[in-house]
């Protein structure tokens, strides 16, 4: 049974994630208006926001410890926040700063925090095998750590996902696969590309339980995830868990969603898990004042992180040559063709029409 404290924690993580992304959205659009230029502004590149996915990250990660591993896909913020990734360093990374998690080398699809064993990959389903590997390590070391791989509904058609299910199952590894089903893979509706209606049915082709739960009810997510993670931690093997979530926004920033029926967009934006969880809190006797306070604290933390990140220095161009190896060869692999700094932005020069 979920405790009121756990409800508070989930609520806090969910409002943190929602507000965090609202703020990122604002920052992302700086320098990209009126004409949208993906390479302009303080946050360039792709940005995938997860509004409507929050209870999946919170309801799963609340069961996890720092020594448990999580791998996330290209839409990672709500999961990272719920896993306890350092918010300031993560934000600095998204802003491409020197003090970011990856010193500005990774950006928003490549958040890595060894303190809480969190990693991302921008390649569909390719977080599954490393999660299986973390679970393998836990088993070999006889710890009770577990691993969780998050993926989208579009990812359940990718080879690496299936291979991971079998490997985890045949070796009875402590890993949970969490499908966030938002019904879309960019512009492709699920029914066009996926033969099953529920991704959890994929488990039927393996000796592994599959379960599906609705994200609107964060407590239901909490409970289903709790069962799956306990199963893994107790040495009883993997589970395929699916959370029906909602994509409240375009696939990435700048996606006009011309392909998407209006009704589907508005359906995704109806009353959602955050409001419902507030009600659950109230039902558990938590006062409105306290709920507001949680929310305000979350907002403050986000604003602080963003303010901090924006003050951070950019990496020096010379840092581009560092970190290819943990143990760099004594002798340079290459003279690098050039290694002087004195860089000039050519993105600006290329974008002559902007």
């Amino acid at each position: 049974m979920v405790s009121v404290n756990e409800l508070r924690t989930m609520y806090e993580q969910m409002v943190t994630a929602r507000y965090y992304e609202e703020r990122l959205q604002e920052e992302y659009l700086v320098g990209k208006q009126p004409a949208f230029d993906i390479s302009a502004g303080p946050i360039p590149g792709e940005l995938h926001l997860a509004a409507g996915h929050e209870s999946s990250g919170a309801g799963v990660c609340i069961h996890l410890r720092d020594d448990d591993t999580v791998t996330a896909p290209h839409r990672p913020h709500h999961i990272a926040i719920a896993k306890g990734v350092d918010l300031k360093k993560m934000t600095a990374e998204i802003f491409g700063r020197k003090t970011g998690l990856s010193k500005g080398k990774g950006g928003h699809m490549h958040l890595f925090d060894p303190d809480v064993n969190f990693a991302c990959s921008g390649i569909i389903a390719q977080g599954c095998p490393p999660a299986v590997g973390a679970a393998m390590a836990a088993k070999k070391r006889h710890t009770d750590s577990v691993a969780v791989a998050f993926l989208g509904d579009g990812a359940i058609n990718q080879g690496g996902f299936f291979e991971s299910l079998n490997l985890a199952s045949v070796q009875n590894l402590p890993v949970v696969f969490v499908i966030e089903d938002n019904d879309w893979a960019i512009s492709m509706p699920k029914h066009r590309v996926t033969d099953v209606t529920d991704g959890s049915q994929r488990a039927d082709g393996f000796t592994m339980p599959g379960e599906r739960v609705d994200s609107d009810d964060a407590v239901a997510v909490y409970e289903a995830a709790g069962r799956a993670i306990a199963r893994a931690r107790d040495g009883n093997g993997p589970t395929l868990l699916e959370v029906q979530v909602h994509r409240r926004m375009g696939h990435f920033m700048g996606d006009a969603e011309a392909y998407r029926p209006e009704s589907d967009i508005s359906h995704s934006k109806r009353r959602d898990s955050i409001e419902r969880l507030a009600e659950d809190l109230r039902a558990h006797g938590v006062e409105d004042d306290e709920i507001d306070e949680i929310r305000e604290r979350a907002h403050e933390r986000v604003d602080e992180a963003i303010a901090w990140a924006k003050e951070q220095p950019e990496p020096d161009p010379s840092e581009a040559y560092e970190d290819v190896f943990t143990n760099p060869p004594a002798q340079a692999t290459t003279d690098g063709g050039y290694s002087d700094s004195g860089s000039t932005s050519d993105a600006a020069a290329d974008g002559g029409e902007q």
Partner: protein
Amino acid sequence: MATESRDVTQATETDRELTMSRAMVEAIAWEMRENDEVFYMGEDVAEYGGIFSSTTGLLDEFGPDRIMDVPISETAFLGAAVGAAQAGMRPIAELMFVDFFGVAMDQIYNNMAKNTYMSGGSFSVPMVLTTAVGGTYNDAGQHSQTLYGTFAHLPGMKVVVPSTAYDAKGLMHSAIRDDDPVVYMFHKRLMGLGWMPSPSGPKTPVPEEDYTIPFGEADIKRHGNDVTVVTLGLHVHRALDAASQLEDDGIDAEVIDLRTLVPLDTETILDSVRKTGKLLVVDEDYQSFGVTGEIIARAAEGALDDLSEVKRLAIPDVPIPYARPLENEVNPSTDKIAAAIRELHE
């Protein structure tokens, strides 16, 4: 064996200018009208029209059977393209970003590229693999590569890299009509997307009618006598800009656009190097064991006595970093090209 030298603007009898994306799509549509066996499949190529506008408008004309969205199963659908091609159709299959090749490389190189040879020529694999390449917009290490060298190294695939709308259209006609597998790598920054402004070079006049550009013919995009610059894709435009900058200083650079890596037009490179004696190779792929090394090696094999200096600019053997100052550092800039030409000229 370069095509007749020409200014891009004189190349055609039309004033109609197209973006590279429109030029590509025009060629695809033309071929699809001519030949029922041509179809296009990929992720988000139907309603979306291709993430990088590689199929804009085609769904309306050809319908979902011929402009077909497919699951995020690159092994399955690229391998299906091989199967359909071996059955005599002429599929075009899109790998959304070249950076994703690793999930499907077996179908690409063990089946698509080798089946013609392994069958002793009894099967052909007439398909086009289209894929978006390149950085400059801070999309980091899994979405910004060109991987030119990776594809050019493995035998059995023709590898095409257009740099202008004119070339893009002619090379696409050639690719679809070719009986062999063609990897058609289009640089995102050149497509003329509303949301990723192109430099001015790739938008060129494009004839309405169909035309082909033969594979294996580099194009001398700028004639010059002092330094040979060999490059491709986006960096054709950066090299041309660098060459213009240097004009005032009396440095006259020749800029060769390879256009196809396989087959590679060695002759045009050698002719130029014999004239200038100085070779700069500029590439947006990783430096070592790739395009720049091959071009320099061919020059050394074919014109060693004429060669007085060689240089190269490429991604310096690091994954592509995200932050703007870092990516700008590793992706050869116009200024660095100009500086390198200047050094060679001294």
